[in-house]
């Protein structure tokens, strides 16, 4: 049987040869930043349309805005960016920006007031999903010709009412405030789309980076802008690669294949902590984890029942186990660091109290369905809730689905209960107040599906007026007080149980410095990064 051994040896040899090129452990080049992140939520790069986390990360580095945050001093609030300064009219309705001189787009065209006018008008006219951030100030496609106007090197915007100036400017720091290169964009217009389909996959900004390529579910590659007005970034190339699994991100980081891993779970963070050449940063973000109860459900609509359910999550147990280091207990609808945020934590696991409240409501037990997105920590929270709800006779059936499946049903008011996260759209308290505590018309026909209160069929009653009043309050302290009161009432009465606020833990190679993720108010900045 010599031929047998011959065959076996030759194949075995072949296998060994194929396996042999062992990779040398490499480091990424000094002028290149390689990041592993989940970027499958990017659907477009057009700032008038982009609205998801990973898309905002790209946008912040590609497009300058009129006002913006300094990544090295986020607490200072908004600062001049493409606008060098601004003045507010006496009636408080018109803000006039003076544009910064000498800033150029990536194309070489100068950034002018005309570009700013075009960008804001364009966002209003295109009327894509995030357009409400601008249109809430009364801008419409019909009136932008008079409300958003460039004059020389100034741009004036006029709102329909007097709003707190900070509210307006905070909104302009959002992705939708990105200033695009009018000439380049209009040169790529198709069928009057104002360049929308071109900008989905290309960029025309003035920021620190320009987009080289975006491969959906795969990677985003950015190239530095050597003429960036704040100075050429140290990192010539930034590659953000989609890596779904935490374990994979960790292995890549440990092997030096990447510089930054952004989606490590607590176990993997624990696993890399203290390893040579690796550091872990924690940054408080704006995302809240909450549960919400549909008011169409006969039992859940009873105030005492929904209050009872807020005493059932094992807040501390979860925070200290599978959420360790990545979520901190927070029970009000404004994230910490926001104007008017409160740190009250009235709820903790208290089965006896929950039982008593249920008894007062005359409810002994019922069965409800909770919709959860297929993300590890959410499924675990759901199972933990399932466990503790069962102790008061509430049977929780978990339905896990993709984000889109669950959201479809949530928006259609079909879920009894929702467990998920909410991230603020712009760094002003109105962003959350206007959705958690505002729903002026609760009828099914209204289809105000953008509002969380609506999705849970909840009529906030007098809180609607409180929200509207707070938006136009010019005095900062008074405004903060209004939000604080609102949240305390909201905690006890609303069908929302805010549970945690997100802390983003980032694993990085120790030589990577000055990487700021944007805190609770904005997105990541690559330009200050050095190695």
């Amino acid at each position: 049987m010599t031929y047998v051994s011959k065959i076996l040896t030759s194949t075995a040899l072949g296998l060994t040869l194929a396996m042999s090129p062992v990779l040398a452990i490499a480091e990424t080049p000094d002028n290149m930043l390689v990041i592993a992140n989940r970027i499958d939520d990017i659907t477009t790069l057009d700032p008038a349309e982009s609205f998801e986390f990973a898309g905002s990360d790209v946008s912040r580095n590609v497009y300058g805005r009129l006002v913006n945050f300094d990544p090295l001093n986020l607490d200072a609030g908004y600062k001049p960016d493409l606008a060098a300064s601004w003045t507010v009219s006496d009636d408080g309705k018109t803000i006039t920006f003076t544009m910064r001189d000498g800033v150029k787009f990536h194309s070489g065209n100068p950034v002018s007031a005309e570009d700013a006018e075009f960008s804001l008008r364009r966002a209003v006219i295109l009327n894509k999903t995030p357009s409400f951030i601008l249109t809430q100030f009364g801008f419409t496609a019909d009136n932008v010709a008079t409300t958003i106007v460039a004059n020389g090197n100034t741009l004036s915007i006029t709102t329909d009412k007097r709003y707190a100036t900070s509210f307006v400017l905070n909104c302009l720091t959002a992705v939708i405030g990105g200033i695009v290169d009018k000439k380049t964009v209009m040169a790529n217009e198709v069928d009057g789309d104002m360049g929308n389909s071109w900008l989905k996959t290309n960029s025309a900004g003035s920021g620190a980076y320009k987009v080289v390529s975006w491969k959906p579910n795969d990677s985003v590659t950015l190239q530095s802008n050597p003429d960036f007005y704040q100075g050429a970034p140290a990192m010539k190339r930034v590659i953000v690669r989609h890596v779904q699994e935490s374990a994979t991100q960790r292995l890549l980081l440990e092997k030096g294949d990447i510089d930054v891993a952004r989606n490590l779970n607590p176990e993997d963070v624990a696993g890399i902590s203290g390893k040579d050449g690796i550091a872990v940063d924690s940054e408080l973000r704006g995302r809240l984890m909450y549960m919400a109860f549909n008011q169409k459900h006969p039992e859940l609509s009873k105030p005492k029942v929904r209050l009872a359910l807020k005493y059932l999550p094992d807040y501390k147990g979860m925070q200290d186990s599978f959420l360790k280091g990545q979520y901190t207990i927070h029970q009000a609808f404004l994230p910490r660091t926001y104007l008017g945020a409160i740190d009250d934590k009235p709820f903790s696991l208290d089965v006896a109290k929950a039982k008593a409240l249920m008894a007062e409501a005359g409810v002994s037990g019922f069965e409800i369905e909770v919709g959860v997105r297929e993300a590890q920590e959410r499924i675990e929270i759901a199972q933990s809730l399932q466990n503790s709800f069962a102790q008061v006779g509430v049977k929780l059936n978990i339905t896990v689905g993709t984000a889109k499946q669950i959201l479809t049903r949530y928006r259609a008011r079909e879920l009894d209960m929702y467990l998920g996260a909410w991230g603020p759209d712009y760094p002003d308290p109105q962003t959350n107040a206007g959705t958690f505590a505002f729903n002026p018309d609760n009828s099914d026909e209204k289809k105000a599906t953008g509002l969380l209160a609506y999705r849970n069929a909840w009529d906030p009653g007098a809180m609607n007026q409180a929200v509207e009043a707070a938006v136009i309050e010019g005095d900062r302290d008074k405004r903060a007080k209004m939000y604080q009161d609102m949240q305390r009432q909201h905690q006890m009465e609303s069908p929302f149980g805010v549970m945690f606020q997100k802390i983003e833990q980032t694993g990085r190679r120790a030589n990577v410095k000055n990487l700021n993720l944007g805190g609770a108010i904005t997105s990541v900045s690559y330009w200050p990064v050095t190695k």
Partner: protein
Amino acid sequence: MTDSTNKEIGRQPSPYFGYLTKALGTLGSIATTMLGLLFITFVIGRVMPIDPIIAVLGERASKEAYDAMYIEMGLDKPVIIQFLNYIWDVVRGDFGMSLLNARPVVDDIIRVFPATLELATIGTMIGVVLGVPLGVVAAVNRGTWIDQIARVIALVGYSMPIFWLGLVGLLVFYGILGWVGGPGRIGIFYVDLVPTVTGLILVDSIIDGQWDVFWDAVSHIILPASLLGYYSLAYISRMTRSFMLEQMGAEYIITARVKGMSEWAVIWRHAFANIKVPLITVIALSYANLLEGSVLTEIIFAWPGIGSYITTALLSADMNAVLGGTVVVGLLFVCLNIFSDLLYKFFDPRAK
């Protein structure tokens, strides 16, 4: 073609006409199969409890934006009209735009398909190179411990949950030993270094003469391809063994042995020569299975292939992408089947 010639042929069928009708029949059956495939996929897309508009616009979509998109996507028209419109586009080679990333689905498929092709090809190569000899050896040593070992190797391959083996393989060979590259087709530094010609990184890097890229790609593909290869090895070795057994019992083999021919010559020159055709059929089928069946492997290894493309699209209600991907995979599957059928008929005297 006039009436009279038609009749003429009807009476005395020319062999060419026979081939022609057969070819037309085959094309017809491909077309109906594809149409059915599209129809089922289309219906699934319509009953899917995901709102495609939310898939496009995101969860904060206002009612106005929603209504505008509803009409833009043609959802206000009856389903059957939507279907016919879609078919008309497909016939013209337009698979529509991906709802999620606003790119032509055709571009996406051109991007992702080579990844799957590369993986399935290497996997099948491994399966053939190891599986055929294993099957032959098992058949020759039928009933002995060698045969039993070959059987266990194959059955273990059949029984392995590939998603689990992939996880453990990554943990051991990448995580602990560091022998192979991690998930993905290529290391991050090498992304975009090689100009795309065929889309197959292994081929493109050779064309470009970038051997470090080539070796990096090899280190990434070797593990997932080996897993798929193991699966295909299991199938190929079992089939080879069974074909060989059939031949080994045949009279001419006995005659050859009686003539004093060496065992090596009997096995390889005679028995094996006779099983080549059915073997190719089996290999084609196994190849087709790998092309369409590597969804889980692609997911575990973050392999940007067509399996994970369809799956991702499906779960986010990007039905244009799902339809496009399914058409390509289905067409390929049907064609490989027909190819192996033809091959069989052409070469195998018994089938004639």
